[in-house]
């Protein structure tokens, strides 16, 4: 029990720390921001902070950081906050693409062949049901890939792993943000 809560709270604290730091740096950059800019600053720092808690060990964190850094203004901001080791470029995308293409073509061949064999064995209706189920899964996997940053060319197994990690981090993010928001609310209310 203690280890578990200790871990999660440490994660939250780390996130909070980085987040606040990021917000401060951002607000030092730009003095007067309208509400949208503030929101963007908050969200950016939050995303960067939560991505950096993973120390670039997961695909989604790397992608998230990379996406944020794509914007030039953000890039400076990012580099100010974090050491360069964490801002890692996405690894050799060309290699990954080639790999995934090769894998995809193999999968297509395999799938077609398996379908033939299954049609022989199970009869056409069962095959159809199965293929419908597969289509469903496939569509949803596609959606999930679009949701999870960096999930585009990942196979099913690692996609689920990344999703797991991403969900946990999102939860931490939401949790801390919510608490901060409520505390801020209470403090302003009490003023």
């Amino acid at each position: 029990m203690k280890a578990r809560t200790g871990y999660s709270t440490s994660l939250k604290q780390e996130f909070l720390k980085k987040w606040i730091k990021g917000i401060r740096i951002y607000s030092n950059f730009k003095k007067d921001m309208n509400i949208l800019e503030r929101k963007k600053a908050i969200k950016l720092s939050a995303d960067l902070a939560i991505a950096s808690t993973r120390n670039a060990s997961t695909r989604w964190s790397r992608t998230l950081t990379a996406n944020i850094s794509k914007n030039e203004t953000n890039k400076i901001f990012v580099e100010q906050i974090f050491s360069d080791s964490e801002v890692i470029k996405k690894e050799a995308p060309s290699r990954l693409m080639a790999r995934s293409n090769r894998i995809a073509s193999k999968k297509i061949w395999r799938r077609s062949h398996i379908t033939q064999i299954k049609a022989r064995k199970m009869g056409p209706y069962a095959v159809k049901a199965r293929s419908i189920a597969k289509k469903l899964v496939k569509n949803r996997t596609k959606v999930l890939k679009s949701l999870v940053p960096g999930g585009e060319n990942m196979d099913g197994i690692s996609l689920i792993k990344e999703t797991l990690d991403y969900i946990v981090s999102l939860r931490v993010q939401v949790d801390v943000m919510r608490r901060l928001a409520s505390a801020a609310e209470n403090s302003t209310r009490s003023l």
Partner: protein
Amino acid sequence: MDIAGKDTNMEPEKGNENPINYHATNMSSDWPSNDNNLIGTSIGIIPTGNSNVESFACSSALMADSSCPQIWNQPVSGQSLGYCDVNVQNIARTSDNFGPTSGGTGWIPDAMLRECVYLPTVPGMVPQSMPHFPAGSGFIERAVRFSCFSGGNFGDTMNPYRVPENLNSYSHILASTQGQHDVFASGGRNMNTTGSSKAVFLPSEYGIEGSPLKNKKTIEILPISRDEEKQGVGMLANDSNEVEFSSRGDQEELEGSPGESSGKGLGSKKRKSTEQNRELNENNRALEPSVETAKDDAEIQHKSDSGKHGKHGSQGSDLPKEEYIRVRARRGQATNSHSLAERLRREKISDRMKFLQDLVPGCSKVTGKAVMLDEIINYVQSLQRQVEFLSMKLATLNPQLTFNIEGFLTKDIIQSHIGSSSSLPFPPDMILPHPLLHQTPPGLIQPGLSNLGNSSNALRRSINSPFTAAFKESTSRGPNL
């Protein structure tokens, strides 16, 4: 006013961090008797090890209604015997399944029992050591074989998604208990922590002894699947699958006859040769007669069931062997290796989906991949939307973007009268670069215990309690947007 809500919120939050800490918690809850062994052997592979534990718990529950209770009453005097127990249960179960089909298989539990006593001699055989107990290896092989048989029957009765779990659990358990069976078990993920010398050992041993037999090609996968575990399961699954294909292709050529029912036939041939192989390996001659009869029974069963079990049997047979690198290609299907690899992949996916089930609220019932994916998508979307909403809210609350945390705390502490934390200096240096105590290792592995005992950790904990206390008035969890 929301204090009660916050309290209840705290609990699920703690519970929700569970998946990060699979190792610490699920192990203890699911396997009080066997956790030591499993932890000892698979400490590096916690998510997969944990999945083994969980599925293992399921499988042992399954075993609970076997009709050979006398096997369970064997004195279970050690951790390894605990595993032996499950193995025996497994085999007892398989013997149940054999009953109607091949008759005369009641001897199997006895043979297993006899070998069960060898297991206590092997507890020291942690994965690092080289195999010294061929008798034990024979036992495991036979256990694997019988679990294969059972896999065929499982396939008939159970949801296809369940089959891989059970067999996987068997194979992982078998793998983890016997250090020797790193020889087989490199496909198993929990062998990751073992030494690197296994790859060398296995091919040589089987190369020598396999050559007189036809099945020399059955044991070729070891280096590749070891690579698999070294480099991470997901990425390399495809590579290993590809290599498996090529090697299994040779096997098909070796064996000859086409046709669907010969899918089982090949399986039986290979089991025959496996048994021959094992006979060479075994020192325990007392088991040989049983091996012979097992072989005959296997043949009989296969011939009778060739049409009946269709895919499931061979799939079942292939899976645990696959974990042990002895990939059994199915005859009659040119895509043998592909479907094998696909089954392995599917099993991995289903393992991970189980973790996701714990994480995503409302996914506790096993509802199949599509529905679960749907839930996951909804959950991720809702979390992302919450982040957006909360950042907007914070932007409105804070025109200057100054988050004076100390200010929050003191006010809240005074407001909500949360104890004596006013004396706590909330150090603003929490904001400053602070030695980050522990970074999570890739995703899921959680050695959170490293935090404890650290002096700054004590400070953080003391910081944290007013923090959480201060935030007691919070909105409820769950999407409230």
